[in-house]
């Protein structure tokens, strides 16, 4: 093996190397956090959509996301019952109301979801026969135990056996059960109740004017065929027919494109990238500038320009790799903390780690290619 000049050059000056690693680590951390929050937003935004047990969804064409729902008549939903392959249909009412914290009386906006409790249509922990039976009672709701603390210590009070009474909108309600959904950028807390209770909380809402129509298919039904039939038969101007996949995609797309959130996080990631590029450039440039006579000597000895370019690029790649490791570790640690602090589902995924690693290498490669411009100054004829 030939003398590994790039490695020796980098490791010779320990302080500079540490600064470089810290810089890259910081840049990687920034990118990881931005991408992590962005993905957590998109993941959390569709937890509810994913939890609904159905294959086909009816929506108003003007409904883009859970926070921007337009109600529609449930008539086409019931019409769908006549299509072959459809097993059952369930209307869902959804709206936001003001929740009063029963302890300190402060108010916050909460997502209220109403459905017919005779049938369980959610795959969520806590939505079970027992809780469904409870919400059949008048003015009884079940509360999301993963809510933000500002909504009050409801789970603690409930588990301590106390009766939790508060107001939602102008209606007095009682919490008689807990379930787990989690916060999203749309809602910091959720309550589920029966369709009848929903209409009590929102007296201005009409029965039969729903927000989501859920269609469950028979086990042997062909999804594509039913989708096509439904689109032909009932998709008029006031309702669209989506598969579950399309429904989730529509929700994600809203957050990605319809709001500034996707852009903001992309911008944050970009800033991490730029900061990293500048730091690595600074390190590589100083390295080249400090060793100019030595590099010129190598050229005088007969080393080619490409060899020296290679040395600088190797340094860039080495920096990228060794800077990535602490950046990754730090981010995993902060993901765990951020997840518990925000209630957002933040986990390190292989694809995100891969993305950031590629960005890091790209970052260092860009810095390297700018820094090698200085190598042209390493002309032995000018130095001696």
């Amino acid at each position, binding site marked *: *093996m*030939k*003398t590994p*000049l790039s490695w*020796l*050059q980098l*490791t*010779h*000056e320990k302080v500079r190397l540490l600064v470089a690693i810290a810089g890259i680590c910081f840049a990687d951390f920034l990118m990881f956090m931005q991408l992590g929050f962005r993905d957590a937003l998109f993941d959390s935004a569709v937890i509810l959509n994913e939890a609904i047990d159905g294959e086909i969804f009816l929506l108003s064409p003007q409904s883009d996301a859970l926070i921007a729902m337009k109600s529609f008549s449930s008539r086409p939903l019931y019409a769908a019952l006549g299509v072959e392959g459809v097993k059952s249909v369930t209307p869902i009412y959804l709206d936001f109301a003001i929740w009063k914290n029963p302890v300190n009386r402060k108010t916050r906006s909460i997502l209220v979801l109403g459905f017919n409790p005779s049938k369980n249509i959610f795959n969520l922990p806590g939505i079970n026969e027992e809780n469904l039976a409870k919400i059949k009672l008048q003015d009884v709701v079940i509360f999301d135990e993963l809510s933000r603390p500002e909504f009050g210590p409801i789970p603690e009070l409930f588990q301590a056996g106390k009766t939790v009474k508060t107001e939602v909108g102008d209606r007095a309600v009682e919490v008689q059960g807990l379930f787990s959904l989690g916060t999203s950028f749309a809602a910091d807390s959720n309550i589920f109740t029966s369709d009848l209770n929903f209409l009590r909380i929102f007296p201005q809402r009409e029965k039969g004017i729903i927000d989501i129509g859920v269609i469950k298919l028979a086990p042997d039904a062909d999804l594509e065929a039913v989708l096509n039939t439904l689109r032909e038969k009932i998709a008029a101007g006031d309702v669209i027919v989506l598969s579950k996949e399309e429904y989730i995609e529509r929700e994600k797309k809203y957050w990605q494109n319809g709001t500034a959130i996707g852009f903001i996080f992309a911008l944050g990631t970009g800033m991490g990238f730029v900061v990293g590029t500048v730091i690595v450039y600074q390190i590589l440039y100083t390295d080249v500038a400090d*060793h100019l*006579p*030595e590099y*010129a*000597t*190598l*050229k*005088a*000895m*007969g*080393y*080619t320009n490409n060899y020296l370019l290679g040395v600088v690029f190797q340094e860039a790649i080495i920096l990228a790799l060794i800077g990535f490791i602490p950046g990754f570790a730090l981010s995993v640690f902060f993901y765990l903390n951020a997840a518990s602090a925000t209630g957002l589902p933040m986990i390190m995924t292989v694809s995100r780690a891969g993305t950031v690693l590629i960005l890091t290498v790209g970052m260092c490669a860009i810095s390297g290619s700018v820094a090698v411009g200085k190598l042209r100054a390493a002309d*032995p*004829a000018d130095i*001696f």
Partner: protein
Amino acid sequence: MTNDYLLCKKIMKKNGIPVVEIRNLNHFFGEGNLRKQILFEINLTLKSGEVVIMKGPSGSGKTTLLTLMGGLRASQSGSMRVFGEELVGAKQQQLIKVRRNIGYIFQAHNLLECLTARQNVQMSIELQNGISPTEAKAKSLQMLAAVGLEDRVNYYPQKLSGGQKQRVAIARALVSHPRMVLADEPTAALDSKSGRDVVELMQKLAKEQGCTILIVTHDNRILDVADRIVELEDGRLREGSLVDSFIGR
């Protein structure tokens, strides 16, 4: 290559080919109105195994001539033959080839700070193809021993004295058995004793390897190591000055 050329080369070898043959060389710096002539009608021949010292005041063009001979700078006009290769109008690739047959020693030692003495010397061997790492290492150690630094092989340049650094530079320049050594003010940064030692060492080792040495200097104390002294003044060469007349022998 024509037969004539090969024949010519053979005859040259027999009679000792000139390592460097310069004819009517002119060199200019700058463009347009700022164009300034640095070297005027230089004629110089260096024979194999010769030790030649080039003297001259600052700004006389010594270093320029040295960099032209070493293929570090493109020769412009006239003829500059190094190892029989014409360097006037030569391509970068040819220049790099010539450089690999030349050992350089500079005023500043220019050792790589991040490499030990042995690794610095080894960088020079690694330019040659087909040398195994073990062999390269052995040769480097042997060369460092020859310059009297066998107990300093794993030292970094920072930990070496000026004279020791210059000796590492000599080992680096000579380890690949170059055909010519070009030394630019090798003693300038050294005290008289270590300067003298360094030059004598250089001369001794180069003689053993049969290589030509050109030393650019204005250090009068080392003139006696030369077989021949040339003097450059205002870009014009005065050839043929005898060593004896300079050093008063």
